[in-house]
């Protein structure tokens, strides 16, 4: 389990990285390496070039401004998890990060790396989808922004061009009027989720759902925004009936087939339960946050 041979580049700047990326469209971009290195050690991936972003220090930052938490792609997950400004602006970020693997993996794993890897069972892509976040990418022809909805295409596949690099990830803030929750079920602590549900919720004056955002991981080929479940909840109080209907709507999004650790039927039940529990937890937090 040793990587095959490759040519190694450690560009000093983003511009240099982008140029290298353009020159070597088959290259692997090495951020934290916590997903890439296992693939290389198993020789499931044999990139001919590796572009290591470790020296591009301009890509490691956490900025909170204009109701957005903007996180440089090379920011270590652990740093974002500990960032007090980010936690104030959007507590769902740290809650999601604490579910990502184990702390030691988050020590090196980067925010941009996890998003670019686009594992449908991973938490950060689901979080980005839930929040309607976006990424900024850089290519030789300049920068552009891709929304979460446009970004995740398939299992381990994003809509980035082969010569583009993610520079930052933007998570919209959640004002104090929002409740939040990320719940998942894993086999072991730190494993990828059999299913996870990320929820953010705003209640209006008469305790009816004013705004709600729901996304799931582990249930299909991409993180999934549970839109029909959201619609089922709008303008209704969180009654048993509403929760059940939202759960059922969410269960309909499960496309993962029967697997050893989770049958499709089990995953559907799991999503239903997690939607319910996540919504109730978000609402309970909202109560605490606003009281």
């Amino acid at each position, binding site marked *: 389990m040793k*990587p*095959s*041979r490759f040519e*190694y580049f450690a560009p000093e700047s983003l511009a240099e990285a982008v140029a290298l990326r353009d020159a070597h469209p088959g290259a692997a971009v090495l951020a934290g390496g*916590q997903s890439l*290195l296992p693939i290389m*050690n198993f020789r499931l991936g044999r990139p001919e070039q590796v572009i*290591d972003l470790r020296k591009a220090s301009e890509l490691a930052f956490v900025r909170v401004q204009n109701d957005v938490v903007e996180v440089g792609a090379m920011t270590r997950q652990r740093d974002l998890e500990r960032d007090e400004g980010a936690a104030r602006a959007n507590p769902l970020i740290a809650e999601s990060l604490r579910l990502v693997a184990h702390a030691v993996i988050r020590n090196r794993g980067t925010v941009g790396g996890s998003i670019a890897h686009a594992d449908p069972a991973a938490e950060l892509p689901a979080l980005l989808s839930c929040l309607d976040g976006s990424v900024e990418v850089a290519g030789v022809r300049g920068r552009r922004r891709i929304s979460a909805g446009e970004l995740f295409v398939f299992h381990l596949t994003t809509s980035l061009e082969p010569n583009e690099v993610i520079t930052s990830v933007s998570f919209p803030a959640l004002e104090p009027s929002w409740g939040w929750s990320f719940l998942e079920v894993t086999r072991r*602590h730190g494993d990828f989720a059999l299913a996870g549900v990320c929820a953010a919720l705003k209640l209006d004056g008469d305790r009816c759902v004013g705004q709600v955002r729901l996304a799931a991981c582990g249930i299909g080929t991409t993180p999934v925004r549970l839109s029909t479940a959201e619609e089922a909840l709008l303008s209704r109080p969180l009654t048993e009936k509403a929760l059940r209907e939202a759960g059922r709507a969410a269960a309909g999004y499960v496309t993962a087939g029967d697997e050893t650790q989770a049958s499709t039927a089990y995953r559907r039940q799991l999503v239903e339960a997690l939607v319910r529990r996540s919504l109730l937890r978000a609402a309970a937090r909202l109560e605490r946050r606003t009281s």
Partner: protein
Amino acid sequence: MTGVETSEAVEAEQKTSLRVVVNGTAYERVVPVRRLLSDFLRHDLGLTGTHVGCEHGVCGCCTVLVDGRATRSCLTLACQVDGLSLTTIEGVKSADGGLHPVQQALSDCHGLQCGYCTPGFVISILEVLNSPDELDLSEEGVREMISGNLCRCTGYQGIVDAVRQAAVAMGRDGDAGKGAPA
């Protein structure tokens, strides 16, 4: 099994020079760019206390501190730590050169059997007990704290007990929280 296509660029093994400080000693070595940090420590520097158990980041046997942070050395290329400072199990000791409180506690509480996973546990526990993060020394909290490392022998109970004993010895039990001693 078919042969791999090899581009001209990777036909020759690319090497790079790197400088690191490990356990306070500075080293400079020329290594292939694909050399894993675990192999670099073990075979290039002869620091064999860092063990290799899975090479895909799950077992934690190869955990070392990179600039104070617990890191899987099997998921890190040696060249990625150029210019950084590392601590391996060989560098863990108490002020008087004896066993560090974490090591002492593991022995007192029978937190090791075959010893293969032990250096990884020592390093992982050390990072947490030295971190500024709030500590949760409840049974569940400690188990979560060490949940990035696998042990096949002990059933973890002795390790959990050892974390608590070490936390007391290091003065991390009282406030259960912030402002840990340096």
